[in-house]
């Protein structure tokens, strides 16, 4: 950098105005723009559009038929209830752990803050295997004891909720930590000094301040939870009408023969994709545009 800047400028140094004009007209910018748009078109836009097209390739009737199959209805209901519990657990856990990370010092704080992110980068298959090793009723560390106490975790909804909660664990926390750091504790301290209880000051001061961040975190967790596949596949067993979620149904139906099964797979995919895109649009349009130049 220094040698570039120290080099004597050539006599044809353009003025500032000229630089900007040259830039805006440069072919380089056009090339880059076209390359980026073509890349995204081929990798994301066109393939996603084709799935929508394939779903309705036989018209609307087979899609509506697919939606009325008991297996499909069951799979979506199960997916919703598993996602609901996982998001609920992650929200409660996320609020408490974000408050702890931002406002308190304790041994292992930095390690915990890093460990929170591990679920984001660890393979869903590894997550499933890890839960299986501990909670399996047959071979698990704790599974046998829990099973004899009447609580089945693996191949049952509790295990599916745990797997889903694991993979979407950091989403709420990552939304809350920056906002909690930003707002500080002055207002809460003022409320406390005026006689508010800790619960009151949380409900009246902190919660309103973090509500948008919390909403984004919940929407993202929900989208991630509804779409979880690998971890749930291992811990659920994927039995139709018992532990088969919507993503597992897509896999099973796509691999079976027949147009009807394919349309069912596409229909379930279409709905899952629609939910994901809607969640994105909601979060993107609600998020304050803080970095607007």
């Amino acid at each position, binding site marked *: *950098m220094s040698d570039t800047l120290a080099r004597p400028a050539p006599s044809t140094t353009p003025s500032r105005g000229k630089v900007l004009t040259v830039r805006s007209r440069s072919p380089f910018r056009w090339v880059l723009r076209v390359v980026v748009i073509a890349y995204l078109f081929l990798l994301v836009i066109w393939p996603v559009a084709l799935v929508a097209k394939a779903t309705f390739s036989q018209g609307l009737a087979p899609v509506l038929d697919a939606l009325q199959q008991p297996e499909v209805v069951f799979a979506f209901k199960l997916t919703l209830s598993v996602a609901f519990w996982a998001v609920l657990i992650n929200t409660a856990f996320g609020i408490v752990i974000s408050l702890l990370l931002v406002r308190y010092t304790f041994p292992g704080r930095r390690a915990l803050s890093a460990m929170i992110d591990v679920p984001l980068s660890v393979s869903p*298959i590894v997550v499933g295997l*890890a839960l299986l090793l501990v909670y399996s009723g047959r071979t698990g560390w704790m599974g046998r004891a829990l099973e004899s106490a009447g609580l089945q975790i693996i191949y049952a909804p509790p295990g599916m909720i745990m797997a889903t909660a694991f993979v979407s664990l950091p989403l709420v926390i990552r939304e809350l930590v920056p906002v909690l750091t930003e707002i500080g504790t002055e207002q809460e301290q003022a409320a406390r000094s005026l006689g508010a209880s800790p619960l009151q000051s949380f409900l009246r001061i902190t919660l309103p301040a973090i509500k948008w961040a919390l909403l984004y975190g919940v929407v993202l967790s929900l989208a991630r939870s*509804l*779409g979880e596949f690998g971890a749930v596949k291992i811990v659920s067993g994927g039995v139709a009408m018992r532990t088969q979620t919507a993503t597992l149904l897509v896999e099973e139906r796509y691999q079976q023969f027949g147009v009807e099964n394919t349309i069912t797979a596409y229909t379930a*995919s279409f709905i899952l994709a629609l939910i994901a895109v809607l969640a994105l649009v909601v*979060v*993107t349009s609600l998020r*304050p545009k803080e*970095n607007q130049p």
Partner: protein
Amino acid sequence: MTASAVAPLVERPDAAPSPNRRGRWRRRRTTALTPVAGLGLGITMLWFSLLVLIPLIAILVQASSGGWQAYWDALTSPQTAAALRLTVSQALLVTLVNIVMGTAIAWVLVRDRFWGKQFLEVVIDIPFALPTIVAGLVLLSLYGPSSPLGVDWANTRVAVFLAFLFVTLPFVVRTVQPVLLELEPEVEEAAASLGASRYVTFRSIILPALAPAITSGAALSFARGISEYGSLVLLSGNLPYSTEVASVRILSYVEGDKLTEAAAVASILLVVAVLVIVVLDIISRRVARHV
């Protein structure tokens, strides 16, 4: 403009405050634990241990249960070694593509103006939000047997590459974008006015500023790549020695009730995942010190 859904996920909010928040960050006050907070910490740590820590430790314990020789044999069995090689090489390749294309996309999203740019912002996040099994179906529709392009890459290594490319798309873009937004164009104009060519300006002014963000994004996309499973199920055919990746290998060990072998392969993925988190932590703390 960068109102992205994924942005806070790829930045590390705890460690690297964006420069415009720096002042407030320094005023942050933390206190020692109160009894109520201690109880909260106890309960959350219990849940965190039951959900994350104990199961992940169980993988390491199970992997070592057969001794070093069994561990090594599991990893070097021809089929597993082939799967690990394929996974790592494709993930590295995809990471390289992401470094170039992710930076280019971030550049266009920040510096260029054109109709429909807002739409591209949402498009970038789609691979993150889309269920992975649907992602496989999506890619299959353009690059599979009924492709309108006339290519059929299903069940080939190209399919593995494409699946990795799809699911890792947002990471470099979303780490580079906020840094690029903070860069002052005046510095580049100064360089240009002193006679630096576009290339020199890019190499000696822009690239050094972006390097930490690109590294973080690359680490994230590598981690995401090697751990990918869902999008490959329908797309790659999972053919042994050809398109079978590490995650699929673990799953078939689990289905064959060979938990020790499964845990051995899983331990490799787990170590890489933790290493990536550590690298990100180091990078973001270094950046936070220097701004």
